[in-house]
């Protein structure tokens, strides 16, 4: 190939005036501005150097900053070599960033003659010069060998230095362009892998009588390999959440593959145990040795309300238990899928879904979401959200969770895929929560009650009486018992009304409902703050009952409120004005 740069230089006689030399250099600069690929650019640079300096051969070593090594990408009739910076002529030049002119190579101890021995070529004299771009970044080292007549002189050094600056910038530009092109190619491939990954996710949630099911996937911008599945398999519901290790295209594709495998084996009638073993073994054969997939694979039988599952390295599994108002956390049952072939697998584990229970599967993109301070979102925040939003429709519950994560992040970017799978056994009309033994918890109790009223569409006119009665009984428990346990609050729909129970644990029997009424007719000098609570609540609710269980040392106060009781008292009042917000 006729070199464009060499052609530009051919018109210049390097033995003439300096102005003429400068023109040659500028011609080189113009020629090097062409959009070559790296290999062509290197050839152009070497060709130009040979022309300008009247050298027999030339080579360019590119600097690999990561390894602090120089790499001979191209050398006419020579093999590729790597040299550490600092070693030999090339390394010394790179380290010191100064030109080295060696008139007699075999007299210089830094010269490595093995290259000559291997190639049969004899190097007489050599000019070694650093390629440094205009930002003072070392791009590489150029060497020109054997000046046609004699050795390289001071004028050649000056020419070479001017040429080197042009070459450095040109090479730098080509390298950066190639990196950009490569980046764009990777991005497009990743986008395709993402599209495939997303396309396998369920587009509609299966309808299972007595259950609400929700799944959501929020991909990270560049990385991650989550998937989930919720699908009917016979009379059962298949529930899957999986997360492939690593970043980039491979995990996105491997979870997609696993997703497809699972669907196939279950639709072919495999039992849970066999399905997990089969998919594991296929993945073990198919995945690279350093890759694996953590996965929860479960089957819910909606008739027995039992979930049988395997959790291959996926944890924690959260089981929100409505009766407790909190989560049980389960560990993985085995190591991740694809890590190694399995002959057998331990039997599956079961969990039973009571009314209101929620199976909560979240990828570590949630638990490990880091905020601006590098703090993880963690399991406890998830538990708190489940307690606070337990009766919301599952889609709203998931939205509340994602919103909490976003608020927590305070602008910190999402680093990993986020996947949420919620399966709730429907059981409205009853909610439980626990509150710290502290009057400051009153605000949380109000929020809890407000959410229950909204969810159950209860008459908001009952709110004032319910809030007041709850507060008075709660603060009474906080003030007058020595227990340190949290106080449990149960809210239950009873017809159009509501029944509220507060349970105080580890306490002596004390029936607060027997406290006498306050004498409200006393003159103000004799009135005392306090003692009014019971007096008031007796007047706003329908009934208040006390019960004590001596064996468990539990005190329970239960009260009921119906909309009718308000109508009796508040006749003629405009409806709805009690529903003031908070």
């Amino acid at each position, binding site marked *: 190939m006729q070199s464009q740069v060499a052609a530009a230089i051919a018109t210049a006689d390097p033995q003439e005036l300096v102005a003429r030399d400068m023109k040659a250099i500028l011609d080189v600069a113009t020629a090097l501005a062409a959009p070559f690929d790296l290999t062509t650019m290197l050839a152009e640079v070497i060709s130009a150097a040979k022309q300008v300096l009247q050298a027999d051969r030339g080579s360019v070593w590119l600097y690999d900053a990561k390894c602090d090594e120089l790499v001979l990408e191209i050398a006419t009739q020579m093999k590729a070599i790597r040299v550490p910076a600092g070693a030999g002529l090339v390394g010394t030049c790179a380290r010191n960033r100064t030109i080295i002119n060696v008139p007699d190579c075999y007299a210089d101890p830094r010269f490595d003659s093995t290259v000559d021995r291997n190639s049969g070529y004899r190097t007489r004299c050599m000019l070694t010069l650093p390629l440094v771009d205009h930002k003072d970044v070392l791009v590489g080292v150029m060497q020109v060998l054997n000046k046609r007549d004699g050795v390289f002189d001071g004028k050649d050094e000056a020419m070479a230095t001017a040429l080197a600056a042009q070459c450095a910038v040109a090479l730098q530009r080509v390298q950066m362009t190639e990196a950009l092109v490569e980046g764009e190619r990777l991005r497009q491939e990743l986008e395709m892998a993402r599209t495939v990954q997303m396309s396998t996710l369920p587009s509609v949630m299966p309808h299972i009588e007595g259950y609400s099911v929700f799944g959501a996937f929020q991909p990270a911008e560049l990385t991650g390999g989550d998937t989930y599945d919720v699908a009917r398999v016979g009379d059962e519901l298949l529930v899957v959440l999986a997360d492939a290790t690593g970043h980039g295209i491979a995990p996105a594709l491997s979870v997609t593959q696993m997703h497809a495998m699972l669907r196939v084996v279950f639709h072919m009638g495999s039992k849970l145990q066999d399905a997990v073993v089969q998919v594991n073994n296929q993945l073990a054969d198919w995945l690279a040795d350093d890759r694996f997939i953590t996965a929860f694979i479960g089957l819910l039988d909606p008739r027995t309300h039992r979930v049988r599952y395997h959790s291959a390295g996926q944890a924690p599994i959260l089981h929100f238990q409505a009766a407790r108002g909190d989560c049980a956390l389960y560990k993985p049952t085995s190591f991740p899928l694809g890590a190694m072939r399995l002959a057998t697998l331990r039997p599956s584990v079961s969990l039973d879904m009571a009314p209101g229970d929620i199976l909560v599967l979240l990828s570590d993109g949630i638990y490990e979401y880091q905020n601006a301070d590098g703090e993880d979102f963690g399991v406890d925040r998830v538990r708190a959200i489940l307690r606070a939003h337990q009766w919301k429709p599952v889609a709203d519950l998931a939205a509340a969770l994602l919103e909490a994560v976003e608020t927590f992040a305070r602008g910190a970017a999402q680093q990993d895929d986020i996947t949420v799978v919620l399966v709730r056994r429907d059981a409205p009309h009853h909610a439980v929560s626990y509150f710290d033994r502290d*009057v*400051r*918890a*009153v*605000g949380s109790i*109000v929020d809890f009650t407000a959410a229950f009223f909204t969810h159950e569409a209860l008459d908001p006119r009952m709110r*004032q009486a319910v*809030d*007041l009665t709850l*507060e*008075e009984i709660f*603060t009474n428990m906080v003030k007058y018992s020595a227990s340190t346990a949290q106080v449990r609050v149960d809210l239950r729909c009873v017809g159009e009304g509501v029944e509220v129970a507060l349970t105080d644990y580890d306490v002596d029997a004390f029936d607060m409902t027997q406290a006498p009424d*306050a004498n*409200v*007719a*006393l*003159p*103000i*000098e004799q*009135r*005392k*703050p*306090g003692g*009014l*609570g019971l*007096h*008031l609540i007796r*007047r*706003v609710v329908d009934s208040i009952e006390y019960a004590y269980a001596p064996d468990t040392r539990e005190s329970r106060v239960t009260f009921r409120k119906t909309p009718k009781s308000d109508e009796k*008292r*508040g006749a003629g*009042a405009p409806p709805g*004005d*009690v529903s*003031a*917000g*908070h």
Partner: protein
Amino acid sequence: MLVIDHGSEGVVVIRGRLDAAQSPVADAFLGKVQGVVTLDCGGLEYVSSAGLGVLLKTQKRLLAAGGKLRLTGVNRHVMELLGYAGFDQIFEIEPAR
């Protein structure tokens, strides 16, 4: 939430929920008022016995010094509780219109 602050013309404005958790806020504020004080309760959504205790304590202190606490703009529910507590006998109360 509870907000209590000086409004215009010497009126003290209270808004939100005067419950057990918030009553220390009201107590700290009302502990410093003097003379005849009008408490604008137009934004007071809720009051419990803890809140009533703060009002009573303030009223006793002001009366002893020749002042008093007047409650204005009281909503129906708060009014009802004030009635159950016998406060209509010891406070000058102006219900919300």
